[in-house]
């Protein structure tokens, strides 16, 4: 069994890498505004790193986090401070800052040992608020709510600047995140996480150390979110606490939910779907509706997102990835499909 999974896993990766490398060139050939699309793709890459981490925490381990933007903020700010003010090389900060975010995840993991369900949701939500406030309070380093300008990163003697370089920097890490998390979830750790999600008592009875694995899940998730934050800080060149408000945490959960909880490809699909929706379709709808309503910016966007999330929870709880699986099974069995399975 193990060998088969690995083969399936490996078959996908070269195709994915080829697509990621070729996509910007294809876009450049197709449109003049390809820089805008590159920017969207960068955003997708950064968010994928985070949602994959969130999926490990929520989808695989079954722990709720409503404050994941907080971890991202920690990664972003600590890298900005370490590189620009302490003077560490970017390569080192790329390792240290996610670990700092992961340690914060560790701290949040402590209460998670005693509480679960909505209490955990509240705790993590509170964590998100507290982190934002903390960043504003430490204004000697972070410039308070005014925001912080971040320099371009230097890696192996090259300065990474401009959309093209950013794209490849972000997507190298996004691909690494996808592959690494897939591997991790197929290993002993991933199986332990899933056992905890399905039944804590049964997992404990089978010799899984609940405390250790829950903390580990929070740590891993924090590291992924921190990495996303580092990349965001150094490719956007400007961060402020407004970039990490609690609505963003909710959006991350929408991405994971729409994609399908508990599958890495699901998180990836959901992120792509939501970011494209936000940047390409929502402006069009806003244009239509603008004549009708005197709207505040963002109202229509959140209306659409809220509705999508609600409809997915009610009608398609397994998300886009679940839909894909259904289609795949349908074609595999093609003329011999039991009718009632596909209602």
């Amino acid at each position: 069994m193990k060998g088969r999974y690995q083969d399936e896993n490996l078959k996908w990766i070269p195709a994915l890498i080829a697509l990621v490398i070729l996509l910007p060139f294809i876009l450049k050939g197709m449109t003049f505004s390809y820089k805008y699309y590159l920017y969207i793709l960068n955003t997708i890459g950064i968010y994928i790193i985070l949602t994959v981490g969130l999926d490990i925490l929520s989808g695989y381990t079954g722990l709720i986090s409503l404050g994941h933007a907080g971890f991202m903020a920690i990664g972003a700010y600590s890298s900005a401070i370490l590189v620009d003010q302490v003077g560490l090389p970017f390569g080192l900060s790329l390792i240290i800052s996610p670990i700092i975010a992961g340690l914060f995840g560790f701290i949040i993991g402590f209460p998670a040992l005693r509480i679960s369900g909505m209490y955990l949701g509240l705790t993590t939500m509170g964590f998100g608020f507290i982190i934002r406030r903390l960043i504003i309070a430490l204004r000697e380093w972070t410039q308070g709510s005014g925001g912080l300008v971040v320099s371009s990163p230097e890696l192996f003697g090259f300065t990474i600047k401009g959309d093209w370089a950013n794209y490849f920097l972000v997507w190298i890490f996004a691909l690494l995140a996808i592959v690494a998390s897939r591997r991790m979830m197929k290993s002993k750790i991933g199986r332990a996480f899933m056992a905890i999600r399905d039944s804590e008592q049964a997992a404990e009875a089978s010799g899984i150390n609940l405390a250790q694995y829950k903390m580990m899940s929070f740590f891993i998730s924090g590291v992924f979110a921190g990495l996303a934050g580092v990349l965001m800080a150094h490719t956007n060149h400007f961060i402020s606490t407004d970039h990490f408000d609690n609505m963003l945490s909710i959006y991350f959960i929408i991405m994971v939910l729409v994609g399908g909880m508990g599958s890495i490809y699901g998180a990836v699909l959901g992120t792509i779907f939501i970011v494209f929706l936000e940047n390409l379709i929502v402006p069009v709808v806003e244009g239509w509706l603008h004549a009708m309503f005197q709207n505040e910016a963002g109202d229509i966007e959140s209306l659409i997102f809220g509705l999508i999330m609600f409809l997915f929870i009610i009608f398609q709880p397994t998300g886009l990835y679940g839909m894909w699986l259904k289609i795949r099974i349908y074609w595999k069995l093609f003329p011999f499909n039991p009718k009632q399975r596909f209602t």
Partner: protein
Amino acid sequence: MTSFFTDIGQEIVSGIALGSIYALIALGFILIYKATEVVNFAQGELMMVGAYVNFFLIQTFTGSLGVPTIWTFLFGLLGSIIFAVIFGWFLDLVINRPMRDEPVFSIIMATISIGIVLRALVGLIAGPMSLVPPSPFGGAYIKLGGIIISVLDIFIIGSAIVLVSVFYYFFNKTRWGLAMQATSEDPIAAELMGVPVTRVYTLVWIFAAIVAAVSGVLLAPRATILDTNMGFLGLKAFPAAVLGGFGSIPGAIVGGVILGIIETISMGTLSFHFEWIKEINDIIVWIVLIAVLMIKPTGIMGTEEIKKV
């Protein structure tokens, strides 16, 4: 020194009033939680909807700039309660029935999404401007030994006490209340015993919507401004409910009042004497929440929940 005590007294009084509003919001989701084990993250938005409905009703009665008398205010309150009944029934139909056997996570996310939708819809319908809701009591106040208490605050505290006691009585003494308790304990067993579980759920959501509308109507004139961000205030009632013990009706008012007092005192006297308190004013409720969950997750009046495999 006397001025110090008057200041503290003043802050405690306004803290009790603020806490009463937290208690009312908390009462809303405690009701839902007690009967259905669902946590409604959209309670703040329900409150906001109630406040908006009340505002527009009063506006239609008195014209755009008219100051409401106590009667138009009560009439507006009645109107928003009627609206809340319909709305609560609708929410039960939309959220609670399809989500009955889903995991906690999905239900939390469903209520959050409803909250997002409501906030966006109200923003679209009411327009981007903030409204200024008129107070039915004008600026009337009572002076008690140097402490000024506005009539609106007294009204808020009074209605919180009345509503909490009514629901406490309802839950523990009446037939329907006992049916709700049975449903929360074990819906299948309750159904077999002849409890109309579906109707109990509908009733609970309607009650929660009514409580939310009342708290919204009371909060709007106190906050002197009405916009869609009012929904976020509902989140602050969660720490109150957890502090009082989630699922305990008297716990709502205890937790709410304690939290309200903590918040106003830290914003007032403490900020004045300690510089660093200013930084954590708006997150102090969340610090309290995490502290409570670390030390005593059942809160002040909650009971230990024992989970069997």
